[in-house]
């Protein structure tokens, strides 16, 4: 103490060391670093949540429409003369459905128009009627009301997914047009738009003074090109109407003296550009409809209240279809279920047995080390490689059939095994050694300690690993594509372990590839369903973990 007093104030003593400015700065910096670390974490969590939110909202936004279908009620007479009671599936239901539909439009009589009108009805409508009759054979001879779906474009139109009209001109065409606008050469006369251009009547284009045979198109092109000196494409050429040359020709024919002079001509625009110039927009009928009549018929049905919106049970209970309004996931769900069943039955016992051997029995040798390292690495092998392996081994060597859930499940099991083994080993390692000692201490043998004490305690971890592995397998696409598990299965009646099938992710893959507008929302809806299965599986994993977990 006396030493401290003896020292000069401000000296580096233990008492004042923590009060120097440098020390205070250090403290401030340390606090700032702590806060920064926290903000980095918050930032990345926030980013993840935002991205997840975007993913889900876009999926829901584009997918929710698939859960609703527009249907029209048809009153159909199930004519006993047409439908054979013994074999009700064979009748001409297409004709029945169409004729019932045509009664709403008695004024449409010509075969051409009827063909067009018939396209408003889903191509799957006859099957809906047929299935109804097969399910209710006692109603043959009755007048029945059956709701059948509209075809995809009309379904989408009714749900407001696609517009009646679309922009006739793409953005870059509009940009080309705006060049003219900026130059101020556009003007409208008598409800028609023109480009004011100076056309030089080039004597070189008038062969031997024959004004009749002169190439006026070339002269107009020359003049018009001056507006687009820097354009790389010749897309602007479609701006002018086809008959611009005749306007010039008429002028020159009237006054042959104009040859060699430059005249100002009003060049008419082609149809869409003309609309764009006069009204500021150019629309055409959505090409998914064949003519305005389609829309008129649709509006008429709508006005009469014949169209109703229903929940799309087909999405869950129908198998795949070429018609989006009838396509469903039941085939894919069945296929996925069968494949996952095979995957679970193979990977769960093999995985646990492997993990228990490696963790509890295997001697520490170079071989077991090698196996261990390889199992850990297998968990990181891209799934497509497992698909190739399945293709090479199961299909080519063992000669198992293509596209079947058995092989799909086997390939998925290969993929799931490392996950289960790693998770099981971690769970076994986490069982405190005191439990094993207690077991051995009362004279339990090795297998008794394993089965009675260690495995039950490791079970939550094992189950979690297994369910996460299965959830991964459920979402796996590439290996299934390689063994052909993306078959088109329009009916689930004959599905089995050795029958061709598709799975949820491959179904999504093939729908995503389809051009019909309805498959866009169907794809999103299928992804939502896949995600909800994954969420359910993970929730089960969490529940099981908390349920089975015991404290010690």
């Amino acid at each position, binding site marked *: 103490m006396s030493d401290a007093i003896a020292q000069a104030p401000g000296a580096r003593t233990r008492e004042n060391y923590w009060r120097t400015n440098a020390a205070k700065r250090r403290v401030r910096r340390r606090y700032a670093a702590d806060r920064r670390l926290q903000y980095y974490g918050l930032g990345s969590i926030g980013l993840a949540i935002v991205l997840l939110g975007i993913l889900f909202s876009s999926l829901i936004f584009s997918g929710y429409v698939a859960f609703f279908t527009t249907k029209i009620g048809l009153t159909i007479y199930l004519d006993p003369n047409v439908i054979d009671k013994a074999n009700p599936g064979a009748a001409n239901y297409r004709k029945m459905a169409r004729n019932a539909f045509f009664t709403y439009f008695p004024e449409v009589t010509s075969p051409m128009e009827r063909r067009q009108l018939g396209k408003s009805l889903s191509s799957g409508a006859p099957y809906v009627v047929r299935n109804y009759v097969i399910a209710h054979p006692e109603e043959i001879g009755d007048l029945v009301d059956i709701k059948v779906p509209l075809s995809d474009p009309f379904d989408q139109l009714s749900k407001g997914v696609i517009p009646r009209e679309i922009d006739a001109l793409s953005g870059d065409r509009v940009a080309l047009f705006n060049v003219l606008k900026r130059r101020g050469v556009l003007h409208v006369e008598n409800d028609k738009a023109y480009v004011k251009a100076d056309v030089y009547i080039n004597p070189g284009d008038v062969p031997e003074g024959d004004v009749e045979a002169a190439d006026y198109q070339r002269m107009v092109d020359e003049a018009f090109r001056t507006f687009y000196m820097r354009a790389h494409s010749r897309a602007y050429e479609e701006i002018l109407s086809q008959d611009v040359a005749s306007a010039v020709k008429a002028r020159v024919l009237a006054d042959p003296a104009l040859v060699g002079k430059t005249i100002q001509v009003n060049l008419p625009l082609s149809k869409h550009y003309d609309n764009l110039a006069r009204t500021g927009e150019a629309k055409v009928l959505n090409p998914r409809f064949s003519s305005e009549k389609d829309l008129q018929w649709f509006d008429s049905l709508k006005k009469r209240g014949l169209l109703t919106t229903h929940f799309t049970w087909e999405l869950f209970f129908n198998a795949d279809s070429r018609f989006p309004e009838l396509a469903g996931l039941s085939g894919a769900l069945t296929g996925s279920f069968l494949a996952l069943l095979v995957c679970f039955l193979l990977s769960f016992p093999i995985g646990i047995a492997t993990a228990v051997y490696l963790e509890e029995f295997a*001697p*520490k040798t170079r071989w077991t080390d090698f196996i261990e390292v390889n199992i850990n690495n297998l968990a990181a092998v891209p799934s497509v490689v497992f698909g190739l392996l399945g293709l090479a081994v199961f299909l080519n060597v063992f000669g198992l059939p293509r596209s079947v859930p058995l092989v799909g499940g086997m390939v998925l099991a290969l993929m799931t095994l490392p996950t289960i083994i790693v998770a099981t080993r971690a769970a076994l390692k986490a069982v*405190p050694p*005191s*439990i*094993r*000692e*207690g*077991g*051995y*201490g*009362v*004279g*339990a*043998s090795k297998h*008794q300690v394993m089965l*009675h*004490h260690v495995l039950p*305690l490791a079970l939550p971890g094992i189950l979690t690993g297994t369910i996460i592995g299965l959830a991964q397998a459920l979402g796996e696409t590439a290996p299934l594509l390689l063994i052909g598990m993306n078959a088109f299965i329009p009916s689930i009646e004959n599905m089995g372990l050795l029958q061709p099938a598709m799975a949820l992710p491959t179904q999504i893959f093939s729908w995503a590839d389809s051009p019909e507008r309805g498959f866009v929302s169907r794809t999103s809806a299928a992804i939502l369903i896949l995600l909800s299965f994954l969420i359910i599986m993970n929730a089960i994993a969490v529940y099981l973990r908390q349920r089975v977990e*015991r*404290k*010690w």
Partner: protein
Amino acid sequence: MNDQSKAFTMEMDKSGSVASDTVMNPHKVTSRKVSVFYGLKQALFDIDLDIPDRAVMALIGPSGCGKSTFLRCLNRMNDTIPDCRVTGEIKVDGRDVHDPDLDVVELRGRVGMVFQKPNPFPKSIFENIAYGPRIHGLARSKSDLEEIVISSLEKAGLLSEVKDRIHEPGTGLSGGQQQRLCIARAIAVNPELILMDEPCSALDPIATAKVEELIDELKKNYCIVIVTHSMQQAARVSQRTAFFHLGILVEEGSTADIFTNPTDKRTQDYITGRFG
């Protein structure tokens, strides 16, 4: 009560009466030239130690001196440690524990063990105790098993405390109760020898006192070997004490002798607190 449990009870009575009239009993365990290696490292050097029946033998010594290792040789618990090798001869009841004909499971049935940290199974109190008799086939019926559980709990002095919650998890008990549950679990298989590896080091003084009382009670019927760090505990509960140092058995004798009149300087230094 059926024949087996009657025999069980009779044996208890008999041994109890024998214990009271003799202080120095025949040796339950004899060990000759026991050495233990962990890989290349030798942990115990030629231990010769005889342990009397129906008495408490305390093994004391500084940390890492090999007393726990020796204890674990007696029921071949060291088998579960990879790379651990035991040489020499250990006889329990005149039978070599390394005899290839001897089943290690049977040995561990005859030699119960209580560990440093209470380690009840994460099951009910009943199941904790019933587990040993069940795997050894000691009970022929459900009532037999209940009999064994009740008597074990009683012998461990736990019955009155847990009577009403015998089907509740054993892990819900206090530390001291858990340790006594582990003792009850060990005696449920009717062992001849009970090994205790620092059974009180994780307990508070009151729980320690209870376990010590229990040990005192149990020594009437069992041969007990206890490893302890507390010299007071060794002095309180044991009749004989062995002092280990750096893998060597330095001195062995009656507890009174070791603590009042040690012959080796190292023993004296240790018990007077000069090292350890």
